[in-house]
C-alpha cells in the first residue's frame, strides 16, 4: 500500500541552502524535469517534496544488519524504500538506524535524492499505439550481480516482473512491460537498484526524436 512520501514538517521549516533550492522556493523552477534538463545538482530532498506533492513511497525490504564489536553485536535496521509519483519519476533509497522509524526517514531522504526521470512510450511492434504505457525500447540495468532487461510490451500485458520490480515499475508509471533478470535477485536492494538503473537508461539512449530537438 503506497503512502505519501512528503515530509510535511521538514517542508514547512525548510530554509533552502543551495542555489537550486532557492530558485525552487522563489518559484523560478516549477517542475522537477527542469532541474534534470538543465543538469542542476539536486542536493536537498525538500526540493523533491516541494515539486512533487503527490509523491508516494512503498517499503521494499526491512532487514537487521549487525556489526560485531568487542562488546558483542550491535544491530541496526536497514530499510529499503522506493518513491515515485506514478507518472515518470522513481527513486530507490536505503537507510540504516537503531530505530526503525529513523531508518525509514533516512531511506526516504536517500530515495528522494536519488530520484530520476524515466522515458515512457510504446516500443512494442504488436501495439504501435504511441501512448506512454510502456517503454520506448529495450533497456538494460545493472547493480551488483543483478542484471535486468526491460522489454516494451503491448497494451494489456501488465507488468511481467518479479515482485520487487513490479512495485518499482508501478511507481514509475509503466503499465506494460516484459522483464528478464539474471543474477542474485534475492538481494532486494540490488534488484531494486538494477530496475531503477534500467529505467534511467531510457534517457541514455538517443532516439530520432532527440535529433530533432538538438
Amino acid at each position, binding site marked *: 500500500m503506497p503512502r505519501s512520501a512528503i515530509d510535511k514538517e521538514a517542508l514547512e521549516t525548510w530554509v533552502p*541552502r543551495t*542555489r537550486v*533550492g532557492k530558485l525552487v522556493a522563489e518559484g523560478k523552477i516549477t517542475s522537477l524535469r527542469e532541474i534534470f534538463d538543465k543538469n542542476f*545538482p539536486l*542536493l*536537498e530532498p525538500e526540493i523533491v517534496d516541494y515539486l512533487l506533492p503527490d509523491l508516494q513511497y512503498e517499503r521494499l525490504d526491512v532487514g537487521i544488519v549487525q556489526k560485531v564489536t568487542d562488546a558483542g553485536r550491535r544491530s541496526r535496521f536497514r530499510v529499503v524504500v522506493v518513491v515515485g509519483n506514478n507518472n515518470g519519476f522513481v527513486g530507490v533509497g536505503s537507510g540504516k538506524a537503531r530505530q526503525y522509524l529513523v531508518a525509514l526517514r533516512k531511506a526516504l531522504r536517500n530515495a528522494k535524492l536519488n530520484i530520476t526521470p524515466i522515458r515512457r512510450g510504446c516500443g512494442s511492434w504488436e501495439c504501435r499505439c504511441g501512448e506512454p504505457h510502456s517503454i520506448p525500447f529495450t533497456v538494460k540495468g545493472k547493480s551488483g550481480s543483478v542484471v535486468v532487461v526491460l522489454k516494451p510490451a503491448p497494451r494489456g500485458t501488465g507488468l511481467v516482473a518479479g515482485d520487487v520490480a513490479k512495485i518499482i515499475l508501478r511507481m514509475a508509471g509503466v503499465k506494460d512491460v516484459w522483464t528478464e533478470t539474471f543474477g542474485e535477485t534475492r538481494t532486494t536492494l540490488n534488484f531494486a537498484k538494477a530496475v531503477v538503473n534500467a529505467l534511467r537508461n531510457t534517457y541514455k539512449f538517443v532516439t530520432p526524436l532527440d535529433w530533432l530537438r538538438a
Partner: protein
Amino acid sequence: MSSEEPKTQQKEKPVIELLIPLEKYLAAGVHIGTHICTKFMEPFVYRVRNDGLYILDVRKIDERIRIAAKFLSRYEPSKIAAVSVRRYGQVPVTKFCKYVGCKSFIGRFMPGTFTNPSLKWYFEPDIVVITDPRADSQALKEAAEIGIPIVALADTDNRIEFIDLVIPANNKGRKSLALIYWLLTRQILREKGVIPQDADLPEPPQEFEVKLRR
C-alpha cells in the same frame, strides 16, 4: 596578432607582446615541465630538451592567462573558489583571493565542501580555480559533480579530465606559482577596470611567493 612577418624577424624580437618580459617568465621557471608528458598537454609543449624534460610554450601560457582572466572577471568575485592543497600554492592563492575578493581553500580540502549542503563549511561557487588537478582531485571531482566551470593550472604530467580551461604552467615551482597567480590577479583587475590597463599591482610577484623558513 600579426603572424605575417618573416621568421627571421620573429627571432630577433617577439612579435606577440607578452604580459611581462620573457626573461621574467623564464626566470620564474614557468615554462619548465616534467619528464612525463600526457597526450592532453602535448599541444602546449614547445620542445623536448635533450635530457627528456618537456618545455612549455611561454606564448601559449601567456595567451591562456589572458583568456582565463577574461573568463574569471565575468563572474562575481565572491562566487569564485580558488583551491590549493600544495604548500607552494597556498600563499599565491590567498593573495589572489585577497585582491580579487574570492574564497580560498588552502590545505586539506574537506570532502563535501561543494556537494553537501548540511555541512557548516558548505560553499557554492560558480567557478573554481584549481592549482594542481592531481593534488586537488577532491575539489576537481566535486566541482565536476555540481557542474560548474573549472579553470586549472596544468603541468605536462597532468590529466585534464573535467577541466574546462587549461592554463599550461609549471605548477610545482614556488616562483612559478607566484608569478602565474600574480599575473592572473593583475589581468583580472585590469579586465574589471579596478586598475588601469597599464598599471601594476601594489605588490611585486615576490610577495606572492611562499617564504622559505631558514
